[in-house]
């Protein structure tokens, strides 16, 4: 397959960037999107050009590192699929594909397609955990969790922190990410002791990072490779209201 990639090139955070077109004449339909970028980079390196920087790690859809915007869609055209799991067979021979970094003030471009997503880490630091004493793990069955609650917690725990929700949101809001933490931890008995404090801290950290507010537009949930639903945002709002009214 012959593809043309138009890629955002930006040498450093302070320099202006631009879209640069590259032809990849030998793309294989079974390659992943990242492998396509690898093939391009190999050639650029041999030609003495600067290879395209992009984030990646697991290449199996679980680490959340690899997000880029492909043809205006976070993680590309296939729903519930990370960029690393997207295959070139989703495209047609001769296609021109635009590849851009996540856009949000809270995510500065480091280089090319690589952005600084540490704002999400700081949200986690503010409350995306439960405090537990160290030592041997308690017997799991000693804390019964009803099946529907376990399911909700588990579904929300699948968030990989990729930031596609922020990238897709017209307000650059991280509500879906934050709501996944709240819907995960606040619904479990293990998260109950810190329920109110957690949601207050998470929202405060999220606002302090310069993410926008939620307008219930729903672009986030469409872009999310893990299908975190809008219902989680309703849960976050409910938990925040509850905690603000002084309930523990």
């Amino acid at each position, binding site marked *: 397959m012959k593809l043309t990639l*138009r890629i*955002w090139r930006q040498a*450093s*955070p302070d320099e202006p960037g631009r*879209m640069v077109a590259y032809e990849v004449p030998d793309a294989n339909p079974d390659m992943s999107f990242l492998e396509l970028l690898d093939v391009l*980079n*190999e050639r650029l*390196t041999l030609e003495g050009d600067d*290879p395209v*920087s992009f984030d990646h790690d697991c290449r199996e859809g679980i680490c959340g590192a690899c997000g880029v*915007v492909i*043809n*205006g869609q976070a993680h590309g055209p296939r729903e519930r699929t990370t960029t690393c799991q997207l295959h070139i067979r989703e495209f047609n021979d001769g296609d021109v594909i*635009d590849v*851009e970094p996540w*856009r*949000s*003030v*809270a995510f*500065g471009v*480091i*280089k090319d397609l*690589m952005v*600084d997503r*540490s704002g999400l880490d700081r949200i986690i630091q503010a409350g995306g955990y439960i405090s537990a004493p160290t030592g041997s793990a308690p017997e799991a069955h000693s804390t019964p969790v009803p099946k529907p609650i376990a399911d909700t917690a588990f579904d929300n725990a699948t968030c990989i922190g990729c930031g596609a929700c922020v990238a*897709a*949101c*017209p*307000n*650059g*809001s991280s509500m879906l990410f934050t709501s996944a933490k709240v819907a995960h931890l606040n619904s479990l008995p293990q998260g109950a002791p810190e329920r109110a404090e957690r949601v*207050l801290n998470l*929202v*405060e950290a999220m*606002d*302090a990072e*310069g*993410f*926008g*507010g*939620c*307008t*219930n*537009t*729903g*672009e986030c949930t*469409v872009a999310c490779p893990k299908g975190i639903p*809008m*219902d989680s*945002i*309703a*849960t*976050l*709002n*409910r*938990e*925040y*209201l509850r905690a*603000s009214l*002084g309930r523990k």
Partner: protein
Amino acid sequence: MAVTTPTRPAPAARPPRPKRSSSAPLNFWRSTIGKKTVMAVTGALMLLFLIVHMLGNLKIFFGPTDFDHYAHWLRTIGEPVLHGAWFLWIMRVGLGLAVILHVVSAYQLSRRDLKARPTKYVHHQRARASYATHIMRYGGITLALFIVYHLLDFTTLTLNRHGVEGAAYDNVVSSFSVWWVTVIYIVAMLSLGLHIQHGFWSAAQTLGVNRPSRDRALKATATTLAVLLTAGFIVVPVAVLAGLVD
């Protein structure tokens, strides 16, 4: 393969996170979710008012005596417990506050949202959200302008061609006999319908009362309310223009 991984630049000096104040209401108001909740509550109050207002307007089809009597009665609700037009003033102050809080929150949140995402994608995003969702800000501005115009027309009577206090029926007929007043009114009511279509469901989401099991019912209620309110408000000027009310 010699792909150089650029070293991450030192994190830009960011201002330390402002410590949370000890006042819970203040923290609430400062947060994005808190302001959005204020919008949801004030929006719901305005919606309640508009339902009653629309139903009241329909009394115009019973003729001038009924309608003017109704308009006069509005000024006397609550007597003798409340003095004179107190009820009317309580409503005016309450609704005025609701509008101000709604608009101030909308303005502050919108500014923040636009600042959070200044760079558009070169390749346009295909929007999945509905037209009603996208038009909220412009629709809101349309409604704000309309509210001012509407008050100058029928409350202060400054712009009203007939403009006789107490003669509500004739004031309404004189305004809507002018075709472009009716056009303004219809455009504003269509904006209102779209605003409610997204706003009603959105408020349920903001207040955390939405659930997957209620989502469809809430969306259906939003559409029903939007259509009934828009149609109920528009039918009056259209009837005037068509000569059914004169």
